[in-house]
């Protein structure tokens, strides 16, 4: 699937970067976003698939990103 959205920094659980999709959904990258995208407000476009992972963050849908670009 293709996700477009903005990178957000969520302060819960010690803090982490997630993606707030333009579709209104929250996405938690698994593994975490590459360093160059870890900046709040960065617009991204990603190819991803659902991940069945678990995390301490328990926020959004976990996704495994195969390709990501700044949008």
């Amino acid at each position: 699937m293709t996700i477009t959205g903005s990178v957000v920094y969520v302060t819960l659980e010690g803090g982490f970067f997630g993606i707030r999709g333009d579709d209104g959904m929250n996405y938690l990258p698994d593994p975490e976003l590459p360093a160059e995208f870890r900046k709040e407000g960065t617009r991204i476009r990603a190819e991803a698939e659902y991940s069945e992972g678990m995390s301490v963050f328990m926020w959004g849908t976990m996704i495994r990103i195969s390709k990501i670009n700044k949008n």
Partner: protein
Amino acid sequence: MEFRLIHVLGPVVATVAMYFIGRNMVQKEKGREIRVAPTLILFFSALAFHIFFTEGTFLDRVSIILLDFGIAMIIDSGYLAYHKVHPKVFWGLGMILVFTAAIMYLLSYLFGIIWRFDSEVSNSRNEVLVELGTDDRIDEISGILANYDATWEAAYPMVTASEDSDLSQTFLISVKDGKATDLVNELLNDKENVDFAEENFDIGIEPIESESETNSSGIFFANDPQITGQWWMVPEEINAIHEILKDLRPAKKAKVAIVDTGVDSKHEDISGVFRISPGSTDVHGHGTHCAGLSGASTNNGKGIASLNWEGKFIEVKGYHALDTKGRGTTETVAEAIIRAAEDDADVINLSLGGMSPFPPRSQVKAIEYAQSLGCIVIAAAGNNNGNARNHSPSNIEGVISVAAVNPSGRKAEFSNINTGLARPIAAPGVDILSLKTGGGYVRMSGTSMATPIVSGLVGMMRAINPDLSAGDAYRILNESGKPVEDSDKVGKVINCLAAIELLMESGK
């Protein structure tokens, strides 16, 4: 306020300086020669003494100077009155200074943070964190580091490349004052070797420094100095609990298993109650925070308090279910649950999960196995402001699902609700103070924080009554819990004192 020599020397120095000014006034009135230069030197020395040796915000310092010189003028007005030389000038000015100091101190109290000197708010540690590419070596940037006379060390020496390729390639660079920003900029330009570089600021999760070695508030029975920062510990309630527990001999020490990112077993506030287990280190810090909430040593004169009075009731064990970035798979979580169950855990704390309306089979099986061995499994409801029915492992049968409430007793805005689950409960989960991996204390928010508070309470109950079943434990939590406005969504909020009293009354 801590006593410092400046508190005595300050007024003394100011009084001496003002005395010499007053003495000049007397000499002048009597037509004698006055000594301006020594008096001015003394006055400005007194002023400089205050500027350099007082501490606090800008307004703090100004108000202390005004206060000391105001008091000095009032004292020295007595000398002027004796010589009948305009004592009202010193008296009046002194009163104005003291009054102004009081106003400024009040302003400083209200706005102290924004008035701090820049040097005090600078949180740069003169350190830079740099992440190299997977195949790059630190000596490939040695030329840049030499320009800054920098030294370096591995930031996470305990992490191997196979465990985490990013962390194992991260280095902590130390530089001289003020050079960190320039170094970061130069490193970021080296795109061939450097993936990422940033200053190592003390931001995000600030360590909370102890106000004193022991809690001297007089409000709390326990002497843990950070207890005053644990808002969820209501003095009357927690004092009553600690009064009960100090004379109580538990039937056993309950084992609370923190299935998470591991536990920093060397932390000063958990080392005394930590028992040998696979997850005795914690790079991430989440598991350590949870461990402190379940069983931090209490009344030990250090850090925070929990229900674990003098470490008599709970042993904490750590299990690595998640990696150093706080992530894992259903399998790694299931394996850690099984391992904890086979280590005779009484309570398994799962401050983790993922969106999953239909729980993964491996996890269902692992939890069923743990329950068959008598473990009480407690899981976080999740942080997506959704429904914990769609979140696993909180939606697995027999699991106590914990939502988070804020200091007002309302559902935390991020917390999932527990509607439709068989064992819903809620606990404080906003701005919760607990242990920081590597030492110190830090606040975090999340249903992860609410969960180990419940696990600690249930562990305590198991220590008092080892035969307590998961069903009995939940019944006591629910019957003794406080109904709140959102209880129809999240469940009742735990009431630790009422739960322990109900347990002791009922014998279960």
